[in-house]
């Protein structure tokens, strides 16, 4: 009987789910969404690159860029913790979806916390089998 009453209650109440792409997702503060570099502070010590569990970060000291391979990043917060100059921060929003693998390139000539989105070749350059 209780299931019938709760079914009726559900029938006349608002849906529990949200229409996500049209409405913003319910992201709590402290959600680990994606990493951002503040390139003014970066000293290119490569600590984040070495400590990244998934090898998602590529540091280029000559070009003064930090590249994060978006789909490899597991947002584990390790790079934020190891950074000696607090260059890296974690924001709550996730990165935008795309039709091909993307990388985010942080460079010193861009404004703070802004990045260039570049597309990787499909299969990351590996031959199709």
């Amino acid at each position: 009987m209780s299931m019938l009453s709760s079914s009726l209650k559900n029938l006349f109440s608002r849906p529990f789910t949200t229409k996500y792409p049209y409405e913003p997702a319910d992201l709590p503060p402290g959600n680990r969404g994606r990493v951002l570099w503040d390139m003014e502070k970066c000293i290119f010590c490569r600590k984040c690159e070495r400590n990244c569990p998934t090898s998602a970060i590529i540091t280029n000291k000559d070009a003064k860029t930090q590249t994060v391979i978006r789909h490899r990043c597991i947002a584990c917060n390790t790079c934020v913790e190891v950074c000696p100059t607090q260059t890296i921060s974690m924001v709550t929003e996730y990165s935008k979806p795309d039709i091909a693998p993307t990388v985010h390139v942080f460079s010193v000539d861009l404004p703070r916390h802004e990045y260039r989105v570049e597309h990787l070749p499909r299969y990351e350059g590996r031959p199709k089998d």
Partner: protein
Amino acid sequence: MGRATTIPFGPQHAAFLEPLNVKLTLDEETVVGAVLNQGYNHRGMEYALSLDYRKSQYLVERVCGICSFHHSSAYCQGMESLYGIEVPVRAKLIRTIMMECQRLTSHLLALGHIAEAVGYENLFMQCFREREHVMMLVNRVSGNRVHYSMNVIGGVKRDLSPEAVKDVQATIRDLRPRLEELRRVFSRDSTLSKRTRGVGKLSRQAATEWGNVGPVSRASGIPRDIRQDGFAAYSMVEFKPVVREEGDSYARMMVRMDECLQAADIIEECLPLLEDGPVAVQVKGHPKGETFSRVEAPRGELFYYIRAKGTLGLERIKLRTPALMNVASLLAMLPGCQLADVPTITVSVDPCICCTDR
């Protein structure tokens, strides 16, 4: 006696969330024989985990999505015993709270899955709605819904702030009447009990022989719960393993339902015990030696064997996941049942193929 028919059940089947193939031999509608065929999800986890022990603490969470925190707790616990360090009490309590939160999400998923397998879509959605409250809670506490990335060797990374403690308390308080409501439906609903009572019997003797663990063994009357050994902070809380005697799908379902309420109890017991203090200790150097580590994951005893040789790589890491034993025992449950009951029975052992195949 008609001619025996063989039908494949899976690997893609509406009742399964993950690929598992059961080759059923049928006589009319009755199952007379079953052969399990697994390995569709074998990813070579044991090899990958042995490459770099520091990165493995994130990789172990990826073995399985619905018991990720238990995996990383078992791994970190093993590594801590290799280093010979004692984790701060606050970290142990936080681990216990998060493990019980994950048990809630996992059991509610399993219950919803059983409801769906017997064709009770409405109850399935109710389960998932209550589960979503816990998912949002762990998202607020840990920063992620599934892979919490909270455990590190030596403690936990994220502390529970006073607001988070209040949040956990409030959510569990709100959740309890909903869980009791669900329990009433699961225990009294006539549709459910007709589909699950007496279906897929596993006697106590068979459960012992097949080495079943977790809710499956406790539903067959084996009062064994690894949490009694007192890993993490379980020695500080009072609880009794949920045991039922029937050994059928209904008992397995109800054990999970009662464990949900028990998980809420344990979380509420842990929260007042939290005292200010450090949440992690630093570890130095590479580990060396050999250890066994066990935790009670939602599906049962999760076993880790770690042997380290004092380098970044581990000599051997072996995972024995609970689903491996429970899925194998399907061979004891299936013969004699009706074809229409096969989804219910397979789902009632909560097969996690990610865990089974690794």
